[in-house]
């Protein structure tokens, strides 16, 4: 097993502080290569923390969505900070939540974890199906090393990590109160090759593609629930009166849902890829998101979730914006 002593020591030290409510990190899951979010409330809990290439989930989702329980009369709300472990992409979610005032800076203690890319579990599942024994993993000289039941296996990064990591421009946290380990080299680019390749297809081809994908959507809303930017108290998708989108699962309502979700993320999506990871029917949602990221980058030269002082993109107007899209 990799060495998590530094991480656990830091977590213990953090959770022992008077101004920390709890710490959110990762721990080994119950089986196979799964990992789970881990809420550390007492120092002993920290002994289960891990940080490895298997820790793909974006914990920032738990910040803005934290339940606000009624405060009993006569007592004060707990205003202590929440400590959170973030990878580069996760840190952008934290920043974007700060920009949108979803959380306050003084309410969060960010522990940055520079990341060399997380494993795409689907790729792993293909190679080693039905693995039940727990699997450990670590980064090793640019490769990903896995401790499988069958023994150690090393894969080149390109072969095993998630697609989003191959184009990642922010492997190092953009915001952190303390950073664990050394910053890693940035290798991603702003070239939207995947989107460009898709855009050149005919409208018919693209629609056929999406119709098939949307047709398979079962409206489980996992993509919305996992998204760190979807934290409205009541999502418009859940509204009954008026119902913008009907609950029936069919191509029309599914399409409306998927497009509404994508548009609500325009200028806000920080490309953590969580929506695509959790989709049980494997809809390539990052295509939709990244198409909008591309527009936002090219039209407005804007990158969400980088500058906590920035104004949200879609509420401002700059006279020097390109405006190619205005007819």
């Amino acid at each position, binding site marked *: 097993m990799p060495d998590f002593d530094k991480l656990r020591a830091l977590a213990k030290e953090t959770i022992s502080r008077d101004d920390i409510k709890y710490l959110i990190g990762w721990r080994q899951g119950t089986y196979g290569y799964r990992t789970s979010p881990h809420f550390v409330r007492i120092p002993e809990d920290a002994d289960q923390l891990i940080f490895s290439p298997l820790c793909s989930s974006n914990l920032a989702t738990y910040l803005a969505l934290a339940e606000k329980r009624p405060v009993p009369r006569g007592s004060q709300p707990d205003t202590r900070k929440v400590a959170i472990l973030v990878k580069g992409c996760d840190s952008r979610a934290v920043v974007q939540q700060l920009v*949108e005032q*979803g959380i306050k800076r003084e309410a969060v203690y960010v522990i940055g974890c520079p990341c060399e890319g997380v494993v795409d579990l689907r790729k792993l599942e293909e190679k080693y199906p039905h693995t039940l024994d727990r699997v450990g993993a670590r980064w090793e000289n640019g490769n990903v090393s896995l401790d499988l039941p069958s023994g150690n296996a090393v894969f080149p990064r390109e072969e095993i990590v998630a697609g989003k990591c191959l184009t990642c421009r922010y492997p190092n946290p953009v915001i952190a109160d303390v950073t664990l380990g050394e910053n890693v080299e940035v290798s991603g680019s702003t070239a939207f090759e995947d989107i460009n390749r898709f855009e050149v297809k005919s409208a018919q081809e693209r629609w056929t593609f999406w119709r098939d994908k949307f047709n398979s959507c079962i409206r489980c809303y996992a993509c919305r629930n996992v998204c760190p930017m979807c934290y409205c108290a009541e999502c418009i998708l859940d509204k009954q009166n*008026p119902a913008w989108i009907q609950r029936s699962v069919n191509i029309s309502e599914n399409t409306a849902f998927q497009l509404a979700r994508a548009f609500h993320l325009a200028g806000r999506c920080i490309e953590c890829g969580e929506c695509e990871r959790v989709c049980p029917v494997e809809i390539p949602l990052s295509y939709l998101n990244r198409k909008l990221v591309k527009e936002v980058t090219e039209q407005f030269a804007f990158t969400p979730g980088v500058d906590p002082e920035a104004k949200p993109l879609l509420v401002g107007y700059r006279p020097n914006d390109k405006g190619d899209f205005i007819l």
Partner: protein
Amino acid sequence: MSSKPKIGVYICHCGINIAKTVDVEELTKYAVKLPNVRVASDYSYMCSEPGQLMIREDIRKNGLNRVVVASCSPRMHELTFRKALVEAGLNPYYLEIANIREHCSWVHKDKQEATAKAKKLLQAAVAKVRFLEPLQEKEVDVGAAALVIGGGIAGIQASLDIANAGFKIYLVEKTPSIGGRMSQLDKTFPTLDCSACILTPKMVDAASHPNITLLTYSQVESITGYVGNFQVKVRKKARYVDFNKCTGCGLCAEECLLADRVKSEFNMGIGNRSAIYLPFPQAVPAKYSIDPHSCLFLTRGKCGKAPKCVEACPAGAVDFEQKDEIVEFKTGTVIVATGFDVFDAARKPEYGYSDYDNVLTGLEMERLISSSGPTGGKLVLGKGDGEYVPKEIAFIKCVGSRDKSTGNEYCSRVCCMYTAKLAHLVKDKLPEANVRIYYMDVRAFGKGFEEFYDRVRREGVRYIRGNPSEIFKRNGKLVIMVEDTLTGKPLEDEVDMVVLGVGLEPRRDAREVIDLLRLSQSSDRFFLEAHPKLAPVDTAIEGVYLAGCAQGPKDIPDTVAQAKGAASSALVLLSSGKVKVQAQISWVNEPNCRGCGYCVEICPYTAIELVLVNLMGHQVNVARVNGVLCKGCGACVAGCLSGSVQQKSFMDSQILPQIAALGGKL
């Protein structure tokens, strides 16, 4: 309220505007069959008195509780029909307009298709009207005072009119004296009145008026609030001269070490002043101030052994310890009369304004030729031994106007006449001089303008049609390169002096005023009026009015007329003491609001703010709409991701049925 909708549908022919393209009879037959519709009628002019009567009678007779009018844009007659509803005892917001003119008959040719579309639009309106809710129009009190920004002729006139009507005025002027551009002019066209002679009585009136508080050498720092209740903060800059002690005797200026060594802004840099100065002899208030940028004591902390002005002042008014002062007050309305700047002639380098001393702008010529100017009205150029009287004098018009290369496509409206006037004054002072005016067109559109233009030509001023391409120096003379476009001949004209008829531009510090009030600009960068024809002194912000050249180039009579218009608009509010505010405003469903502040940033009227509320013991941010500031534009509604902001009469629950009806579901 919750009773079943009983809808009346009224379809307007608009003469043949609608009836020619839309089959109104078929539309009426169709309307009767729509759900909840009790009556449907068509009429040639629904907005006419008989048309309105039809609606009123139907409401009474059939007990209608909703009305749909299919006619022109709601911008035209929504108010007309709302009044009809009120007269029949119905809440005016139970009305929905289906725009079958601008959205249908005017933009389509095929009658069958247009009728089909009109049906859809009508059906959508009927679908929506069922869900409309009654709204109440609120009124707010209007503070009995007005702020006027800018102390030129526009600001002075507006102030006097409002003050004479009995309301309090705060007149804020940035420079040490009121008077503005008009005080810099020599004579005024076309009557040749002495500008100062007709202006100074008004300046004195404004200063001595019991209802006017004059805040000169002051700048508005912030304006918050809304129509009827503006909170204004003004910075009174330190004059370093005790306002109450100064008698305006001028001894200080004579003794100043920099006497006659600081360029005079009032004289456009042609004459000089001292560091402690009165901008011009008739300045109001006649109080001296010290220019902190040139005063030796203020810039270097030392001026001889002791500042001479302090010794010279018999009243002991000089006070270097003086600090800026902040004045705060409330007003009901605001008039923006911030005026203009003249075009910077250096932006047309081909005319050599930056290179040659004898190339002047029109405003500099005004000062040179004015009897109160630096030369006492003598038309001479050069200094000391080099002084000479020009004999060959040329004017060039449209410098910085009607010129895409400078970004100013507009006509400045005053240059034709002021060049003619200056040419006349030159002929008056130097009858022997040869005066010519290079022009593109002569636009003598005002009262007495054409006659004046004729008179100037009779006096021997030559008008040559051509736009000079270059001015350079040869053998001590200025050479104008130009093509006479009437004869097609290129000319090289040797002259002693060139006067550039520079145009008018928005003030270079206009941005500050925009930021204060969130004013809009038109494409010429002047402040934008609410409507170019029907609301030329109003702005998009209620209670804020425009006067004078801040809105666009104008001559003095037009400026005064507009100032009186702005004053009258302000007085409508001030004298009624109440103003109705928009009823179709937005509101926030607070439990659902995520407090992101998108709407706060989006709102063009600063009507929304984030407030901390107690949510079951937690302090959370939610957006809150100020119902008086909200103009009902709906931008916040579109920007809200959680759908927590809704606009009355345009709520999701009202618009969705409308959209569904367009899609064929009702």
